[in-house]
């Protein structure tokens, strides 16, 4: 009999009357190369086929297997069981989001915030295709590359107490992505996004707790991005106060 570790998994079955979430314990093999996701797959395949959770790539790219592991927002494919011994390992759905079932949360609010900040290249005038690509130097790429590593896994939202207290807050990943396009030399949408982000429930709600950046599995620094947007928005506001004829 090989070594085992207990996974204490939050179960929520909305179809049952009086469906309060509860924990269920499952013993899974403790293997050196197994991540939490492998443990969950073992449960689904061998122990209890009713367990629901999201996953896809198993390699930290798709961003769909985020959950709370021992209270921390983590990608379950990148968190190894051998680092969590002796267990039990507490596994819960991503914090701050409504739970649909077991470990599956509703993404609607996040996708809404993401769309709000217009995370795509905005041009005053599109260049005709015949003129070729929008060129960019490696140095210009370096300016925003860090912020483009976001995989929309929403761990930063689960780490952010400000979003937990009020989900009207646009939140870390959306602002970091807005900043990624603001810093892109091919983009001309800075003012449009700044105007959106400077409104209530935009950047000013953030108090620089910094947990979003600590939680990010891709090394993005959303907390830094938010402060940089604050600075840009504040300087913009001062400019339009001093030179009212120049703007808007």
């Amino acid at each position, binding site marked *: 009999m090989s070594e085992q570790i207990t996974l204490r998994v939050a179960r929520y079955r909305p179809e049952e009357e009086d469906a309060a979430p509860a924990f269920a314990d499952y013993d899974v093999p403790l293997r050196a190369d197994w991540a939490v996701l492998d443990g969950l797959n073992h449960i689904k395949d061998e122990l209890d086929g009713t367990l629901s959770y999201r996953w896809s790539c198993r390699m930290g790219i798709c961003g769909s297997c985020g959950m709370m592991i021992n209270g921390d927002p983590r990608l379950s494919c990148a968190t190894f069981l051998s680092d969590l011994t002796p267990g039990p390992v507490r596994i819960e759905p991503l914090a701050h989001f*409504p739970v649909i079932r077991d470990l599956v949360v509703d993404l609607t609010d996040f996708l809404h915030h993401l769309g709000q900040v217009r995370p795509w290249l905005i041009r005053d005038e599109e260049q005709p295709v015949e003129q070729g690509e929008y060129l960019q130097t490696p140095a210009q790429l370096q300016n925003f590359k860090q912020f483009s590593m976001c995989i929309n896994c929403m761990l930063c939202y689960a780490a952010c107490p400000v979003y937990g207290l009020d989900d009207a807050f646009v939140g870390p990943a959306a602002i970091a992505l807005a900043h990624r396009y603001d810093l892109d030399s091919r983009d001309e949408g800075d003012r449009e996004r700044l105007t959106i982000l400077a409104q209530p429930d935009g950047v000013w709600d953030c108090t620089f707790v910094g947990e979003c950046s600590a939680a990010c599995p891709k090394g993005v620094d959303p907390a830094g991005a938010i402060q940089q947007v604050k*600075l840009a928005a504040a300087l913009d506001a001062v400019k339009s106060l001093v030179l009212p004829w120049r703007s808007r």
Partner: protein
Amino acid sequence: MISPWEARYYRRRMPRWWWARRRSYTTFVLRELSSVFVALFVVELLLLVRSVAHGAGAYENFLGTMANPAVIALNLVALAFVLLHAVTFANLTPRAMVVRVRDRTVPSRVVLAGVYLGWLGVTGFLAWLVVG
């Protein structure tokens, strides 16, 4: 409008004492509370200025009050918080402010070193100004 599916979502609320349940959140709240001691010391500074304005006797009284062990203890606590503020604020500066010189980003270590050098300079100048 809430669909029948959404009506059965399980919605969680932040625990009442959310910041006491996680060490990083507690540190954050302590960092924010440093502002209370910043304000407290501003008041002490103004009391010092007022005592100096009121003459040598008032100034001696002020020094006497500051030498009271309870006041020293309070000021030691205030100092811990003000230092927490100073260090955290300085360390967060390079993340909030990207310095570009001729289209090149200055490395954050250099910005941080600049902040601490500035701190050292201001500290030296003020110490010289006060103690003479």
